[in-house]
């Protein structure tokens, strides 16, 4: 299902090309007892972990791509290879026509990176001092620096924070300062690894707004990994889903929703749940996703069973107080795809 890079198209539509990418980690085997662990100090026993397994895709200039998957699926590993931090075991990466690992510094000038769990600023000094150092690092001309500083200070609302050392900032403030830092040098590509992890909804909103604006106004390319599907849904038109290091879906967000949204969710509020702790008799195309003493949540395939039929079945056994029917959000869709993929392995 992955889009294989077309070698003949020009660089503009193929800003990032990833071909048959593989990354393996060597990991010492856990021995279980101390005696074996001591023996392992001298004759280590390695097992090979394939974190990224033959991934290929291309991303064009100005695209915003959501790179999603469960924990340990290889998202961060891929991002780190794209930035040039890690060297691939096999396969190739071209970013703006260069190999990031070979010409790392040249590549770094054109990219911005935000790690949700790792700050890029200096811990002990006021934020503005970190920015001034970035000006030197990226050789940003003074006029442009001032312009960008004013612009992102305003977008991210960090004006009052510039004089405060990073260690005294809250998590959300820190993250906003980091995002602004990633844009100071007008990067062509920005990689965001879990940018909203642990943030409140207001901080999330301002970060999303910033990214959306930069994508529209500057045609900046974005690759976002996130567990927050609202991030992905508001920011990205395209989604690449990986599981066990392999691409499972690489498609337009709207199309994924249509293709996989055959299922709906129905939620009942009832006087007492007849199946609580007993299990529900199986009904074709229906699955219980959540049950509490006074509520039942079911997911069902609209082509196999109708909501009326389900309601009739439930109303026979208890008194329904309220009903809500909803299409599933992208999160539920992704969960379903992952579950199917895990089964097929």
């Amino acid at each position: 299902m992955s889009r294989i890079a077309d070698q003949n198209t020009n660089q503009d539509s193929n800003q990032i090309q990833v071909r048959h990418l593989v990354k393996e980690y060597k990991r010492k085997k856990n021995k279980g007892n101390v005696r074996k662990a001591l023996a392992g100090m001298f004759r280590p026993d390695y097992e090979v972990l394939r974190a990224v397994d033959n991934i290929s895709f291309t991303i064009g200039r100005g695209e915003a791509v959501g790179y999603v998957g469960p924990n340990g699926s290889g998202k961060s590993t891929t991002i780190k290879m794209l930035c040039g931090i890690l060297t691939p075991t096999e396969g190739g990466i071209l970013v703006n026509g260069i190999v990031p690992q070979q010409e790392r510094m040249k590549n770094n000038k054109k990219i911005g990176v935000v790690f949700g769990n790792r700050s890029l600023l200096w811990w002990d000094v006021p934020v503005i001092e970190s920015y001034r150092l970035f000006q030197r690092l990226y050789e940003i001309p003074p006029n442009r620096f001032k312009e960008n500083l004013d612009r992102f200070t305003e977008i991210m609302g960090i004006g009052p924070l510039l004089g405060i050392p990073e260690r005294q900032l809250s998590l959300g403030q820190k993250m906003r300062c980091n995002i602004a830092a990633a844009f100071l040098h007008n990067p062509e590509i920005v990689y965001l690894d879990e940018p909203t992890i642990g943030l409140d909804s207001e901080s999330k909103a301002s970060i999303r707004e910033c990214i959306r604006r930069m994508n529209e106004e500057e045609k900046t390319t974005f690759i976002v990994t996130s567990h927050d599907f609202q991030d992905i849904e508001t920011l990205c038109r395209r989604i690449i889903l990986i599981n066990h290091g392999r691409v499972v879906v690489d498609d337009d967000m709207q199309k994924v929703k249509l293709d996989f949204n055959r299922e709906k969710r129905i939620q009942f509020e009832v006087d007492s749940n007849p199946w609580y702790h007993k299990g529900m008799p199986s009904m074709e195309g229906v699955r219980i996703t959540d049950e509490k003493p006074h509520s039942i949540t079911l997911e069902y395939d609209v082509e196999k069973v109708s909501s009326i039929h389900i309601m009739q079945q439930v109303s026979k056994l208890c008194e329904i107080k309220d009903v809500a029917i909803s299409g599933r959000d992208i999160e539920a869709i992704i969960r379903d795809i992952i579950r199917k993929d895990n089964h097929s392995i």
Partner: protein
Amino acid sequence: MRRLWYYARLWKGYMRIGLLILVQYPADTVIWLVSMILREASGFLGVVTIANVAGGLGNWNLYEICLLFGLCAVVEAIGQAFFDCVWEISGSVRKGTMDVILVRPAAPFIQLLGRRFHYPALLSIIIYGAVIVWALAHLRIAPGVGMLLFLIEFIVCATVINSGIYTIFNSFNFWIVQGEDMAVLVQTCREFAKYPLAVFPVLIRSFFTFIIPFGFVGFYPAAFLAGKAGTEVVLTLPLCAGAVGLAAAFIWKKGLGSYDSTGT
């Protein structure tokens, strides 16, 4: 040339940040300074006491030993002022913070060094400089252009050797997590370099000349200044610095290539 200008500007930026940190934590700075002086002085006092009682070590008298000590200590202080961050390789690899350095458009090694400066070490450089001058005066070695040039050569080459060796052993952390212990072992071995190597058996002497050349950080240059060694020191010093420098650059590069980051 443009690259050089870029790094000069960058270095200035790092020094500015370093200064700001220094002002942020004044107590930390004072404690650091005291501990550094105590550490160097304690070793020195031991040697001086022994030399005083025994009337010297081998054919080295008290002032010659002071000269040797001064040379060693100045180089170590320069290393602590500007190259101390090579000791942070271990932590950066273990915690994965090397990532931050690798996404920026400047040489990773320069960025690593720029993380922190120990300005207080500049004060120790002055103190040990004074020890050297004092020892030279007592040894009645006449100052001249030749000696000044040699001292400059010494400072540059010995700093490369000293910090290069630390870089090599700290870079092993890229392959063995927690390899810092080995680097600490090497630093402990360096204690030998504060003594005139001539008093040790050939085995130890060869080890600090050919394997881990700490001999060039103090013993050989001091022997040259004191007239106990010939001009071969003037020639071998840059050769040794070149070899150590190249080896350090090679191992650092190799290490970065096999850097695996951490799960996030």
